[in-house]
Each structure stands twice: as structure tokens, then as C-alpha cells.
């Protein structure tokens, strides 16, 4: 157990709770609870969006993906950042001008039926749950490294999941969007501070980026993998022969000992040479593309990442907190600066890990909380805290571990708010109790937060039982990308056509969401089944099951569906001109500017600076 790290994490939790209690005094209305009163300034909002966005997948997953996959892992960083260009170019300003609270509100306001609002709510909940899963898994794994033990009869992993769910339940229900925003700002800067420290320590140790890249690419890329003796010796020992060629004599002796013990179900850590999926005749080296993606997947992955951001409800909701459309654009520019800095640094840590972790294992200074084989981490997702301990000792491990929890807290907070607003604002206030008082609405929103925190808890506890964590090499980043792919297929075509094509009809939009969302779910499910070895069929199912990301098919299919069905349907809302004026009109902004209402107010209430009385 690492005392310094635990003290820092407890300090983070207490500070988080303190901010939520402070915010509670200023969360009286649903606009306060869901939107922080719509008065969050560009830079504050950019910091909060960055905190919301930089989840466990980014903080723990990007460096891990680079460590395991080289260039194909770097794409996670570039793609996650690139997604905000789609937001700023096509969505941010229009969404803010349209007003409202949620993505489902936009769908209802634009197309005018309860049916599309409810379809959107289902999509929001599914996206949020997809995104929640890796955060909760990250919570369990980070707790395992940090504390290394469970409480109340639970495993260390389960304890981490329970603790994070409980903290989130408390602080989001208590502070609402204001508390969550303040916490996200703080959490973003903490995790950024931890990353900067790591990079400073790495360069301080004599690291040369170009040279390290050359060294890492000198030989075939190898990775550690945990397999059963039965799998290792199957097919006349094909995998065993590969492992023997890639491992040191000392490392392979442990493998031979495990085989000699005769237990076919015993698990053993091996090192295997990696295959180039893009250029099959070339060796797979760190600096080249092809470790994860074949030619089709290269495009599908890029599309999933750059389009998916615009389909994440918890990110889009934050745009409603801006005071104006122009402020929404400025926020996005600052987001790109802030997360860009982070995403430039994360791959450096992943690359440096190849050399520094191997050196630490060789000289016996590697932390004992992780497993290694031949100088490689068996679980790549542990790279951030392990690098913290190796290059900065207990203090840096503590700062990095607190950074990991900050990343999880900030994202889970945004997801809980998005989920609560989907059922609280979009269902309860509209259908179950339209005459609810403000007090009843806020109470329901807080209750919804608690319910979804329990759902998150269930998801987190269920992941290890599914076997997903051992089937994918960097499962945290992988699961987040599934959320991106689902959002890109479900929401982005509807938002793009809803904002930019007046001829979009309700039936077209719903059909597009079903085709995009349903298609994404189907392909992701087939990929999971194939990776777990459940699906062995060839043909079309096998082809789809081989696709890591569905976006290259689902996004154009959804777009085409919307266009074709809308053309066939032709039933535009009766007030389509009014709707169009709400999305693209400027009278409201001219009015707000005249009265000083476009200015940023205090996060704790009070009139906006410069507002006319």
C-alpha cells in the first residue's frame, strides 16, 4: 500500500466533496442543476469540457495504447483531439443558439415529436453506459495498483469500483452541474499537472524523443500476453514457437516450467512478436502503422474518433452552458489547445515506457504492484502509475494516481449529469410529471444520479466476469472508442442534417438514428464475440466481426437513410421556418448583447459582469 498516494487521493476526494457542498447553495433550479445557470465563461468551460473529455481512456489508455501499439496507439490521441473540429465547425454554435438543455431537447425542438425525443433518450443512455464502462474499469484497476487490497471481503478491483461509484453518487447529486463544472476544472488541471510532471521527469532522465523512437523501432514490436498452457501449446505449438523466438532464455524457462507442470488451464505470461495488419509483408515496428488496424480499419478508426466526439451527449450538454454561440466557439478553441497539449505528452510517456520500464525491471527497481515478462508490462493500462513510481518515486506515483482518479471523477460526473438529464429533464419533466415544482424536479434529478451511479457500479463489477479485459490489449481505450462509434452513428448524422438541411424530416431522422445506432451496436457485438472466440463464422458475419470500428459503414448509412427517407416522407414540421430561425437566427444574440446578457456571470450566482440592470 502506498501511503503518500492514498493520502493524495483522499485529499482529492475531500476537496471534490467540499466543492460540491459549496455549489449546493447555488443549485436551486433545474437550469442550475443541469446547466450551471448558462453562465460559464469560455476558458472555464474549456477547462471543464477538457476535464469531462479526458477520461480514464485518455489518462490511462492513450499512453497504454502507444506503449502496446506504437503509431496506431498515437492515433487515439490525434483522433480524440480532432473530434472537436467537427464540433466547432458544424455543431457548437448552432446548438447553443437553439438553446434548451439536452440533445433530446434539440431533437424534439427540431422535429417536433415525442417519438424522436424518446429515441434520442435511449441513445443518450446507451452512449453514456458505453462510456461509463471503461471509467469504472479504470477505477478498479487503479485502486488495485494504488492500494493493492480490498475491504469488507471484496477484491481490490471491486473495492475501487465501489468507492468511486459512492463518491460520484454523492458529489454529483450534491453539486449538480455547477459542482461538477467546478470539479471538472480542478480535476483537469490536476491530471494535466500530473502529466506535465511525468514528461518533465522523463526528459530530465536524458530521454531523447527522436532517439527513443529509433531505438523502439529497431526490432519487431513485441507485447506481453497472458495465455493458458492449452492455448500456448495448441496447433502443434505454433504460439509457443513464436514466444520462444521473441523471449529471453530466462523468460522462456518460466514458460517451459509452467508447461512441464502439466496443468492445461494454468495461465502463463509470454512475449509474442506482433503482426503488421496493414502491410502484411512488412515487419511490425513501433513507428509504423498496422499493429491494430488493417486498411479499412485505419479509415474507420479515424472516422469513429473524429466524428464520435460530436456524438457524446455529456460533451454536447456542456455547450448549452456557454453564454453565447460565439463563446461556444471560443470554448472549443481553448479545448483544442488544452487537450492538444495533453495528447502531445501522453504518447511520449507511452514511448518512454518501452525503455524505462525494461531498465527498471533489469535493475530490480520496478514496482512490484505490476506483472512483467521480459521487461514488458503484462497489463499496458498500468503504465501511467508505474512510470510515475519508476521515474519519480512514491510522490509522483501519488500525484499520477490522484490524476487518474481525477480523470475518472470528471468524466463520470459529466456522464451522470447527462444520464440524469435524459430521464429527469427529457422524460420526468415532459411526460411523467409535467406540473412538477422546481423542488420536485431537482429532487428527481438527484435521484436519477443515484440510480445511474448504481448502474455504473454494476457495469464496473461485471467487466472482469465478461473476459473483455483480457481479450483486448488496451481495453480502456477500446471501450471508449465503442462509445465514440455508437455516438458517431446515432447522433452525428441527425445533428448534422438537423442543423444544416432544412428538408430533414422526423421520420428520416429516426430512421437514420436506428440504422446508425443499431448498425454500430451489431458490429461492435460481432467484434466482441469474435474476439472472445464465440463467433467463428466466416462470410459477412465474419467480415463484420473483424471490424474494430463500424463507423466507416454506419455513418454514411445513417446519413443516406436520413436523406432518402426524408425525401420520400416530405413531412416537414409546420413551423419549420421558426425552427430554422431559432437555429441560425441572430436576433436573440443581438438582444442579449444589447442588454449585456451575453457576458459571463459568476459561477456562484450574481449578475453577469457588464449586464444592464
Amino acid at each position, binding site marked *: 500500500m502506498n501511503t503518500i498516494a492514498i493520502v493524495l487521493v483522499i485529499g482529492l476526494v475531500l476537496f471534490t466533496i467540499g466543492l460540491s457542498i459549496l455549489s449546493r447553495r447555488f443549485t436551486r433550479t433545474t437550469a442550475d442543476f443541469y446547466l450551471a445557470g448558462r453562465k460559464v465563461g469560455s476558458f472555464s468551460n474549456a477547462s471543464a469540457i477538457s476535464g469531462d473529455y479526458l477520461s480514464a481512456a485518455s489518462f490511462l489508455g492513450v499512453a497504454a495504447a502507444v506503449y502496446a501499439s506504437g503509431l496506431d496507439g498515437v492515433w487515439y490521441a490525434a483522433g480524440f483531439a480532432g473530434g472537436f473540429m467537427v464540433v466547432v465547425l458544424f455543431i457548437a454554435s448552432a446548438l447553443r443558439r437553439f438553446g434548451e438543455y439536452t440533445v433530446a431537447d434539440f431533437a424534439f425542438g427540431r422535429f417536433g415529436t415525442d417519438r424522436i425525443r424518446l429515441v434520442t433518450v435511449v441513445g443518450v443512455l446507451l452512449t453514456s453506459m458505453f462510456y461509463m464502462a471503461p471509467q469504472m474499469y479504470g477505477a478498479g484497476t487503479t485502486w488495485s495498483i494504488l492500494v493493492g487490497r480490498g475491504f469488507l471481503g471484496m477484491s481490490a478491483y471491486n473495492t475501487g469500483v465501489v468507492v468511486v461509484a459512492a463518491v460520484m453518487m454523492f458529489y454529483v447529486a450534491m453539486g449538480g452541474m455547477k459542482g461538477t463544472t467546478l470539479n471538472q476544472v480542478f480535476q483537469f488541471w490536476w491530471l494535466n499537472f500530473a502529466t506535465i510532471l511525468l514528461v518533465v521527469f522523463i526528459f530530465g532522465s536524458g530521454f531523447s524523443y527522436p532517439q527513443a523512437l529509433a531505438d523502439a523501432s529497431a526490432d519487431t514490436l513485441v507485447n506481453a500476453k497472458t495465455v493458458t498452457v492449452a492455448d500456448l501449446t495448441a496447433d502443434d505449438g505454433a504460439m509457443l514457437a513464436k514466444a520462444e523466438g521473441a523471449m529471453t532464455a530466462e523468460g522462456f524457462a518460466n514458460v517451459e516450467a509452467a508447461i512441464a507442470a502439466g496443468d492445461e488451464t494454468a495461465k502463463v505470461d509470454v512475449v509474442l512478436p506482433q503482426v503488421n495488419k496493414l502491410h502484411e509483408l512488412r515487419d511490425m515496428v513501433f513507428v*509504423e502503422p498496422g499493429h491494430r488496424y488493417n486498411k479499412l480499419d485505419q479509415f474507420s478508426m*479515424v472516422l469513429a474518433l473524429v466524428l464520435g466526439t460530436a456524438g457524446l451527449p455529456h460533451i454536447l450538454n456542456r455547450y448549452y452552458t456557454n453564454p453565447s454561440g460565439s463563446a461556444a466557439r471560443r470554448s472549443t478553441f481553448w479545448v483544442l489547445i488544452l487537450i492538444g497539449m495533453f*495528447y502531445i505528452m501522453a504518447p511520449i510517456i507511452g514511448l518512454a515506457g518501452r525503455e524505462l520500464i525494461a531498465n527498471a525491471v533489469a535493475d530490480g527497481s520496478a514496482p512490484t504492484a505490476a506483472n512483467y515478462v521480459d521487461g514488458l508490462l503484462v497489463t499496458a493500462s498500468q503504465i501511467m502509475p508505474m512510470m510515475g513510481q519508476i521515474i519519480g518515486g512514491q510522490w509522483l506515483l501519488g500525484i499520477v494516481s490522484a490524476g487518474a482518479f481525477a480523470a475518472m471523477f470528471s468524466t463520470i460526473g459529466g456522464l451522470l449529469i447527462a444520464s440524469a438529464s435524459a430521464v429527469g429533464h427529457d422524460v420526468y419533466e415532459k411526460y411523467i410529471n409535467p406540473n412538477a415544482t422546481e423542488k420536485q424536479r431537482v429532487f428527481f434529478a438527484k435521484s436519477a444520479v443515484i440510480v445511474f451511479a448504481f448502474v455504473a457500479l454494476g457495469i464496473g463489477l461485471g467487466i472482469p466476469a465478461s473476459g473483455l479485459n483480457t481479450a483486448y490489449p488496451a481495453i480502456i481505450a477500446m471501450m471508449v472508442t465503442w462509445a465514440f462509434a455508437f455516438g458517431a452513428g446515432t447522433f452525428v448524422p441527425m445533428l448534422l442534417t438537423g442543423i444544416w438541411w432544412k428538408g430533414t424530416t422526423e421520420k428520416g431522422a429516426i430512421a437514420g438514428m436506428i440504422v446508425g445506432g443499431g448498425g454500430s451496436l451489431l458490429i461492435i457485438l460481432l467484434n466482441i464475440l469474435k474476439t472472445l472466440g464465440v463467433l467463428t463464422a466466416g462470410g459477412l458475419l465474419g467480415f463484420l466481426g473483424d471490424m474494430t470500428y463500424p463507423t466507416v459503414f454506419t455513418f454514411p448509412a445513417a446519413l443516406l437513410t436520413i436523406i432518402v427517407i426524408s425525401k420520400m416522407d416530405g413531412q416537414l414540421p409546420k413551423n419549420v421556418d421558426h425552427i430554422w430561425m431559432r437555429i441560425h437566427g441572430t436576433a436573440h444574440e443581438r438582444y442579449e448583447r444589447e442588454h449585456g446578457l451575453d457576458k459571463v456571470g459568476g459561477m456562484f450566482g450574481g449578475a453577469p459582469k457588464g449586464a444592464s440592470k
Partner: protein
Amino acid sequence: MAAQAEAAAQATGGETYIQHGSHIDTIESVDMVFRAQRKLSFTYGAIFFAVTLAIPALSGVWEAWYAEPIWGGFTANYLFVSLLYYVFLWTMAWTYSKKADKLDEDLMYMAEEIEAKFRAEHADELDEEV
């Protein structure tokens, strides 16, 4: 806010408009704003997607791009994805935001001109302040 906009939406002499306080959007002014914004956003969008999708395209076909070191171990592909892509994004976002803000300013003045014309034509039917 949305409720305010809807409440103020009216039709006058066959023309629809939205009124916020003393400010009015007509379908004519909004279409003008929409077309200008669409041109700007889709021009930048085309550049963004062309550059972004060119990277995996080059990774599939051009060996000098993905396999030949140009600085230490950096290939052009690795250098672009790990560093230069962000400079591209920052430049795009900055110039787009500036142009969009400028466009907003220009269009607001133009919208006000259209509004003045509309107000003169429908002076009897308009509210003074909503």
C-alpha cells in the same frame, strides 16, 4: 430562452419572423446568415477531412511517408500524427473562430438592415418590446 423565442414567433402578412425584445429575425435574414455560415463551415470542414483522411490513405500506399525516418526515428507519418496534426487543428480552429466571429458581426449589421426594412413594411403589426 426557447420558450421566449417560440412565444415571440409570429406571422405577419404571410411572412414569419421571430422577435426578441426590439430585435427581429425574418426568414430572409436567417437564410442569408445560414448560407454564409454553411459556406464557411463546409469549406473548413472539407479541408479538415481532406487532411485527416489523407493520413491513413498515405499510410496505406506511400512507403516514404510511413517507413522512412526523417528525424531520428520519426517518420513523416509519426511526426505528423504525434505533433504537427495539433498545430494544424489549432490553426484551423483559431482562423475559423475569428472568421465566424467576423461573419457574425457582418451578418448582424446586414440582419439589422433587413430588420429595418421589415419593420418599415410592418410597422403597424409589430410589438414594441417582447
